């Protein structure tokens, strides 16, 4: 293995991802089953929140992955803009719907958790609102991909949108902190804090988190493969027509 840029070659990428896909998918299934079963059935209830705390094993990992999916799209877009590797642009395209679904899961489980705990499905809290905005960014990004016919132009324009959108997403995040006080609790998973989540909940949560990470990886690999195949098919059809 000489350099990471080898995987910019679609054939190389296809071979490697075909090898990786069963492993990541298997690890995702294993971690998800272990983490969720452990979390749902073998942890005590929280002394204040009762058994509703158990939704944390879906809510927190999907929220973390929703943000990280956008970060991955940002990096992939940068690679496309700078080095013009088609696989990178397709990976960004493939990651968008996955990230959007994670955002929806985080919002939905948050609403389900918020109803018994806060007495409301929705509150204009900075964290909740920034997730809603993140969802809108995903929608706009995917809509722009759909709207442009030329695949290279679409990749270019969506990359520019992703770069500018990231800047504005960060500004929005801090603008919202300024705008309203939140109901949502602060971070309790940090590695350097005094007061953190208890270890009883922490271990299954980390496993579930790994599961969501592998799930994201597997889905993105799979969807990127699909995109590459779709593009090859298009090229073949174009060749047929020419011949």
């Amino acid at each position, binding site marked *: 293995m000489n350099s990471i840029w080898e995987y910019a070659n679609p054939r190389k990428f296809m071979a490697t991802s075909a090898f990786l896909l069963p492993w990541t998918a298997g690890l995702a299934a294993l971690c998800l089953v272990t983490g969720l079963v452990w979390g749902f059935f073998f942890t005590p209830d929280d002394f204040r929140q009762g058994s509703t705390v158990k939704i944390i094993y879906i809510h927190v990992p999907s929220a973390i992955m929703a943000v990280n999916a956008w970060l991955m799209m940002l990096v992939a877009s940068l690679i496309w803009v700078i080095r013009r590797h088609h696989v990178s642009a397709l990976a960004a395209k493939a990651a968008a719907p996955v990230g959007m679904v994670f955002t929806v899961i985080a919002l939905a489980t948050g609403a389900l958790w918020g109803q018994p705990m806060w007495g409301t499905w929705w509150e204009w809290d900075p964290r909740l609102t920034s997730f809603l*905005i993140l969802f809108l960014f995903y929608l*706009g990004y995917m809509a722009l991909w759909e*709207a442009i016919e030329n695949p290279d132009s679409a990749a270019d*324009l969506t990359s*520019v*949108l992703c770069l500018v959108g990231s800047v*504005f997403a960060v500004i*929005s995040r801090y603008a*919202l902190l300024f705008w309203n006080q939140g109901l949502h609790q602060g971070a309790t998973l940090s590695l350097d804090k005094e007061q953190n989540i208890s270890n009883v909940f922490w271990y299954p949560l980390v496993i579930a988190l790994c599961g969501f990470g592998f799930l994201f990886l597997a889905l993105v690999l799979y969807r990127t493969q699909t995109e590459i195949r779709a593009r090859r098919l298009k090229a073949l059809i174009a060749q047929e027509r020419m011949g």
Partner: protein
Amino acid sequence: MIALLKRDLMLALRAGGGFGLSLAFFLIFATLVPFGVGPQTGVLATIAPGILWLGALLACLLSLDRIFQLDWEDGTLDLIATSPVPLEGLAAIKALAHWLTTGLPLVVAAPVLGVLLNLPGAAYPWLVASLLLGTPALSAIGTFGAALTVGIKRGGLLLSLLVLPLYMPTLIFGALCVVRGAAGQEALTPLLLVAGITLGSLAILPFAAAAALRVNLR
């Protein structure tokens, strides 16, 4: 570049629909609000800052597709792109022309509509200041959105979907400034933050808009 600016302003003035329409939209928007929420002056006074900012934002949004669309359709954009003016400069000039024909009239009209909506007296200077400092950001962001979608047929709705999330921080700080001004609280901080967003947008977005234009002109 000055010739370009003059040309855009002339077109907006003479071809009709530039100034007038977005101002009229702003007026209609502000007129419709009391029908929606009822004529109680207390309610109107509390929501007036947000309504005025939202109206200005939507009036800006509706005139965005005009920025590049006509020049794109009749080929003027290709001609300008081959001229010595850099595309970044073109994007900046287009944003400026959009602001002069849309943003500035809105700033002037906003206090009048503030009276209609029973805006508290202390809020007027903050309303004018925040709109004056904030609408250039709306024009710059909008120009970027227009450049992204110029090649798309019937891209109007898509343009709104792309641009409105980007408008969020400007709206938050702009409206917050007026709300605080109305309540007699300290309003300078959000005003400065609006100014910061405007300066940042003016510095970055012409380059992003030019990059998008280059892709679309390829």
